[in-house]
């Protein structure tokens, strides 16, 4: 995060002020019999788990593990104890600016307060033989309260800081973390049950047994997230490498993927479909490898036969990636990204709604990037100019509401036209440079397309 705006600072101050009285009251209640030994042991555990838990990116893997201890505290040391425990969040081993530390601690205190309230209102108490299943209801309620308060406060600060609507940020944080919260919260219950086991008091040694599966769970999510990142990077790099064959499309696939995601988000596509679309955008031109370089680099009009080979490239692409199972819907996107609403496109000449949604998105993104990048035979159009052109072709070639979605998204988030090529050094070994004044047939440019069509 960059420096906080004054509004964000105001919000942080409000949260800190709201949280501050709670620990004071809790400490004052202390003489009513806080179990000090348990509280100290839990605090140590809290700092250790939370410090491990806050590293890395934001996803299931990194929900603060401290919530495990925070939840265990409710049946073990009571609501006031849980609030005091949340204060130890301030001692996390995590290099962070003071204001962030203050905010995090305050929101943990508020979340602990909310969950303590929910727990006691629903009849939560200490654990003894016969407490179950009765104790499950207050515990799960407390867990949900913790999750929602925590999520709301974090989403608010992000929303204020980045100017994105609260609803969207909140949904984003919640969708990824509710399941993890629930799971980690139940680890807290395990800890509490073993810790307090009446008769044979396992005590803090219970932490040993509970931490083992907890760390495995975390490790598994880390592995998964890491593999996902590795996959992403690998695909992007390999696509970029393939693109070195074609000087004029460098970075094209990557940008089409980015623009497709912009459109998809704007029209409210489901997140898992957006993921698939991202790869579809990246892979949409992979079949061009099967088009002879001679044709791709031909100067002047294409003969009908040559044009036919170009028209085959979406099918070639599909053939290549067909065995990648998870792409699923992306296949249709790759196959049909050159169809037109009026049925004049290729390879199948589909019309209107017959064209799969992914393909309609990619078609817009594809044309947009093609027009806004420099080609050897012409300069790049300005973004505004390209959007005007897209609007002109909306209805005949492109789905109008997708064109509008792109325009809206570009207005808010801007657009970076040229990205730095990944493989600058490969220039020396690439095929012959373009002769001056010569021109390629650009199969992505909507204005070019008509020219090519006329020739056939």
């Amino acid at each position, binding site marked *: 995060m960059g420096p906080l705006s004054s509004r964000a600072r105001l919000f942080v101050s409000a949260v800190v002020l709201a949280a501050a009285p709670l620990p004071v009251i809790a400490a004052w209640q202390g003489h009513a019999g806080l179990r000090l030994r348990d509280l100290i042991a839990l605090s140590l555990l809290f700092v250790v788990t939370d410090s491990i838990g806050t590293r890395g990116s934001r996803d299931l893997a990194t929900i603060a593990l401290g919530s495990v201890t925070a939840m265990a505290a409710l049946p073990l040391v009571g609501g006031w104890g849980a609030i005091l425990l949340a204060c130890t969040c301030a001692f996390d081993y995590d290099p962070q600016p003071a204001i962030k530390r203050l905010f995090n601690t305050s929101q943990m205190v508020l979340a602990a307060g909310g969950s303590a309230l929910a727990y006691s209102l629903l009849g939560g108490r200490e654990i003894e033989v016969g407490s*179950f299943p009765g104790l499950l209801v207050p515990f799960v309620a407390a867990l949900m309260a913790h999750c929602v308060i925590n999520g709301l406060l974090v989403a608010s600060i992000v929303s204020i800081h980045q100017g994105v609507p609260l609803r969207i940020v909140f949904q984003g944080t919640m969708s990824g973390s509710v399941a993890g919260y629930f799971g980690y919260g139940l680890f807290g219950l395990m800890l509490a049950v*073993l810790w307090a086991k009446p008769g044979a008091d*396992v005590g803090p040694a219970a932490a040993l047994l*509970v931490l083992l599966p907890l760390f495995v769970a975390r490790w*598994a999510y880390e592995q998964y997230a890491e*593999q996902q990142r590795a996959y992403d990077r690998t695909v992007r*790099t390999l696509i970029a490498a393939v693109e070195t064959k074609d000087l004029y499309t460098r970075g094209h696939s990557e940008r089409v993927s980015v623009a497709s995601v912009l459109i998809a988000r704007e029209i409210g596509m489901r997140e898992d479909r957006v993921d698939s679309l991202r790869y579809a955008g990246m892979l949409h031109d992979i*079949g061009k490898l099967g088009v002879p370089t001679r044709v791709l680099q031909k100067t002047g009009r294409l003969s009908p036969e040559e044009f036919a080979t170009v028209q085959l490239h979406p099918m070639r692409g599909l053939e290549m990636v067909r065995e990648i199972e998870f792409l699923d819907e992306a296949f249709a996107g790759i196959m049909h990204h050159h169809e037109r609403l009026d049925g004049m496109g290729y390879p199948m000449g589909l019309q209107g709604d017959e064209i799969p949604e992914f393909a309609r998105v990619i078609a817009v993104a594809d044309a947009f990037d093609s027009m806004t990048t420099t080609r050897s035979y012409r300069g790049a159009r300005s973004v505004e100019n390209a959007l005007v052109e897209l609007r002109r072709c909306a209805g005949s070639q492109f789905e109008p509401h997708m064109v509008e979605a792109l325009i809206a998204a570009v207005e808010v988030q801007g657009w970076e036209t040229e990205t730095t090529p990944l493989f600058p050094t490969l220039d020396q070994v690439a095929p012959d440079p373009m002769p001056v004044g010569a021109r390629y047939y650009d199969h992505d440019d909507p204005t070019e397309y008509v020219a090519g069509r006329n020739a056939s």
Partner: protein
Amino acid sequence: MSPLVRRLDDAGSTGLLVITAAAGMLAVTSVAVTASHGGFVNPGTALAFGCFIALGEVVRITLPGGRDAAPIALAGSLAYALLAHVNRDDVEHDALQVVAVVTLAMLVGVLPHIVARRAPSVDALARRLLVVGFVAAAFRGTGLDERTQGLPGAGIAIVMICIVAASLGVDALLAAAARLADGAPFLAVLRNEARALIGIGSAIGSTGALIALAATIMGMWALPVFVIPLLLTQFAFRRFSAIRATSLQTIRALSRVTELGGYTETGHSRRVSDLAVAVGRELGMSDAELLDLEYAALMHDIGQLSLAEPIPGGATVVAAPNEQRRIASLGAEVIRQTGVLDDVATMVEQQAEPYRRAHDTDHIDIPLGSRIIKAVNAYDDLVGESPEVSRRLEALERLRLGMAYEYDPRVVDSLAKTIGRSARF
């Protein structure tokens, strides 16, 4: 199917046979003895755990490397083996009853898979049963359960952790014995299995121990409550497995760009990678190394994309050594750009290096993976898709001629063995 997930269809896996037979005998004995002793002690508890284990068998998963696992079922079985009290009441089933309950539950849990025409993986079932048998015997059969009762809390926790660790060891040994069919050295297989098991295995084992301990207070509620975290872990492993598979499929697909572009022969990179992995396994490489080797072999020709004109037939073996080296380093450069496949890039980079240069007495720092790719690539360039035996032998002969200088003798030997053993290559 990938060589990494290939089932052990080749005959000669005696380890697998012994394990299955032992598990079968144990299963039959336990059910027979339990029945002759007048049925189940604490039948309610037995039924609850049995249902739970059966459900766990239904939702089994496949881990990376094609390993079947049923974390929920195994955790439930271990919990039943380690159970001392339910709501403070003693439970007094013996070790054989544990095995009998698990056996019956497994049979029920396998039914839905059979109905859905998914093959029940017999070796995985057998292993689970033997591991549970081991834990039940160690805990209930030796009086350890009685002695643990008197221990302080920390003592109980330590005993449980030791039992979990021991069960992991047994599981890894059994898994290694069952897989011992590809001619790989036993220790290498054992190391692979232990690595694959340690994470999920310790989560399973400790969840089992936790359920057993918590049942004193929570009764049967310990089962559903404590299994949810394990479900999440299982979910993470499944996602990991899936993205692993996707990566492999993607790299396989993208490795075909050289074929589509006319640079290499159809199926070349795929054949090289299948054969390279088989050779690597025979030479005792670990799973992680094998995966890198598979990636490297799939992408070993990717540097050719930078060539202006394809080499005739794509056979790098006929290209000049300097040209081969240039292709290798161009390919490595591409792969290195991913930032996550450095070992793969190194393998690709060194694939054109001769095993030993003249005047260079000990030039062994070329990665094993590169040496394998070099030999296998040359073999495939010479043989191609041809099924003729004479051509294979001729190609091997040619590799042997270059042995000790061009190719690593160990790799060529292993290649010959692999080709001789399986009709696939």
